[in-house]
């Protein structure tokens, strides 16, 4: 079976007074059916912009300047707004970062769920009511809350209600943009558990963006590390965690303290991400890299795949000179 989603050479620019800033720079990856791919990186690395580009939700000053997004055999970048509308919610849905802002505060949860059904299906009212109650129960919310307004729910419940809405029409792909970042740790873990269970039951794929890689460490199949609009490393989650190859992935792993083992001093990653308007020549991470070489400052490394593990680094894949 072919991949559900194939992103090829995706490029997104933001228009700025100083010229175009390349927020997503030639990102390519495939997502299999039922797969959970996590994308991690610092703020400003282009991870959310990339999700928006995939869902075709970019708005000025951002615009896609190249690349294709093949979803289930269709190139989303060529569709008209009306054709896209038919795919949204039915085939893929997006869970936004902050459920507090994504839900309409003046409508009950039930009315908002029903809205999605009315816009995208021809179900009758009884069927809609039944399906809405069903999806709320799926995310452990009492269907009595169909009549509740967002302010009556806790942050965790609102976020779960958003996920329920995303699952209403049983899409093949659910795109999640930092859905856990506003939640407490216990609620965060519980939400990740539920996403995992639902994915096993319903078989949808997940594209999950976060800046905190420890959140996805136990849940994603594969992990992509993004930096300054490029994928720096891509591989199975376990492999990337156990033996990070790119110095940037290394730095990210070493950036969060642990509850395990003896306490030890950590350093984090020094410096700031590069300017995207005038990116440095060579590797974009070179100015902050602890293992930088001469080649890194002049030659831009390519993402090279080695048996399912891709790394963009001269250290791992040295420059070959003819």
């Amino acid at each position, binding site marked *: 079976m072919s991949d559900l989603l194939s992103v090829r050479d995706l490029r997104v620019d933001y228009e700025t007074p100083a010229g175009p800033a390349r927020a997503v720079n030639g990102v390519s990856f495939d997502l299999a059916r039922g797969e959970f791919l996590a994308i991690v990186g610092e703020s400003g690395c282009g991870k959310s912009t990339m999700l928006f580009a995939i869902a075709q939700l970019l708005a000025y000053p951002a615009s896609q300047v190249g690349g294709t997004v093949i979803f289930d055999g269709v190139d989303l970048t060529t569709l008209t707004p009306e054709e896209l509308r038919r795919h949204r919610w039915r085939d893929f849905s997006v869970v936004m970062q902050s459920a507090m802002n994504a839900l309409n505060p003046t409508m009950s949860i039930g009315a908002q769920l029903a809205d999605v059904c009315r816009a995208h299906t021809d179900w009758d009212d009884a069927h809609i009511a039944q399906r809405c109650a069903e999806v709320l129960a799926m995310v452990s919310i009492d269907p009595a809350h169909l009549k509740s307004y967002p302010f009556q729910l806790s942050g965790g419940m609102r976020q779960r209600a958003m996920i329920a809405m995303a699952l209403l029409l049983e899409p093949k792909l659910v795109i999640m943009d930092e859905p856990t970042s506003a939640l407490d740790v216990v609620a965060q873990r519980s939400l990740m558990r539920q996403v995992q269970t639902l994915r096993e039951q319903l078989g949808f794929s997940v594209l999950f963006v976060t800046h905190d890689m420890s959140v996805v460490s136990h849940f994603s199949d594969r992990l992509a590390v993004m930096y300054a609009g490029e994928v720096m490393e891509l591989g199975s989650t376990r492999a990337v965690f156990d033996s990070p190859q790119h110095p940037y992935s290394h730095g990210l792993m070493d950036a969060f303290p642990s509850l*395990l083992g003896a306490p030890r001093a950590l350093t984090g990653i020094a410096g700031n991400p590069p300017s995207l308007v005038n990116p440095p020549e060579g590797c974009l991470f070179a100015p902050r890299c602890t293992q930088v070489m001469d080649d890194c400052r002049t030659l831009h490394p390519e993402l090279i795949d080695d048996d399912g593990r891709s790394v963009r680094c001269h250290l791992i894949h040295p420059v070959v000179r003819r």
Partner: protein
Amino acid sequence: MTESILSVAGLSRFFRVGGFRSRGILHATDEVTFEVGAGEIVALVGESGSGKSTIARVLAGLYPPSAGSITFEGQPIGRRSSRRVRGRMPMVFQDPFGSINPVLRVGHSLERSLKLHRSDLNASARHEEAISLVERVGLTPGAEVLRRFPHELSGGQRQRLGFAQALASRPSLILADEPVSMLDVSIRIGLLNVMKDLRDREGVSLLYITHDLASARYVADRMIVLYAGRIVEEGLTEEVISSPQHPYTRLLMSTAPDPRLPLSDDASVTDLGEPPKVINPGPGCRFAPRCPLAMDQCRASTPAPVSLSPTQRVACYAVTA
């Protein structure tokens, strides 16, 4: 613990909620008692709604306490604490984008703090002191940083500036309210190191307020775990981490995401992380509705903290029975 510089006894802060005729009283913090020693980092750990920020705000004089007493450097703190007291106990806020005046240069804001709190310095000494302050929190070169506007600094740099501003008044205790939670994971550690440096080099105490157990472990000497406005457990950091006693502390430990740990299979599976009821709470332990060990006694009255060791205390009937 060395001599204590802050001691809080029976501190409560209630808020009336709801409409005009509402009888709802929100117990944000309830009978909280703890001490902070000189040159010590104490972490107040809890989820949203645990009352950790309310404690900091009462200490900073932003809210008056509903009950209880606060003694700071040997003096009781009343409703009108002086500028001197506030200077000795400044606060660093959570949001580095909202807590710095965006239209003034960094140097202006910092020298203004110095002017208010350090009247012994003249203009050139203030400038020298401002340079030294930003360099002490790792912003170099200091003179250049002072000329910048806040928007030219990243979130991590701004939060360092927050600490520089707190240092301006030569504090003995800094109240740090979630100083890293809005920063990227990769730059949090740098700021945590700044906090450790301040303790080690300047001898400042810090009250570090956080929901992140792992970062509390990284910086803090002692740890106080709050749930629904009450202290459920406290002790030396390693003591609490290596043998958490309260069921809530254990729940927090098991849900803290850590790629180095295998995924735990316990309460976190069923616990949805719903926040506690703190409006007109009943007489019992507030964790009882979520607690796997809850007994009848837990619903009838609130357990008092019991010492398990000279340093570790826990408030739980099931553990201390």
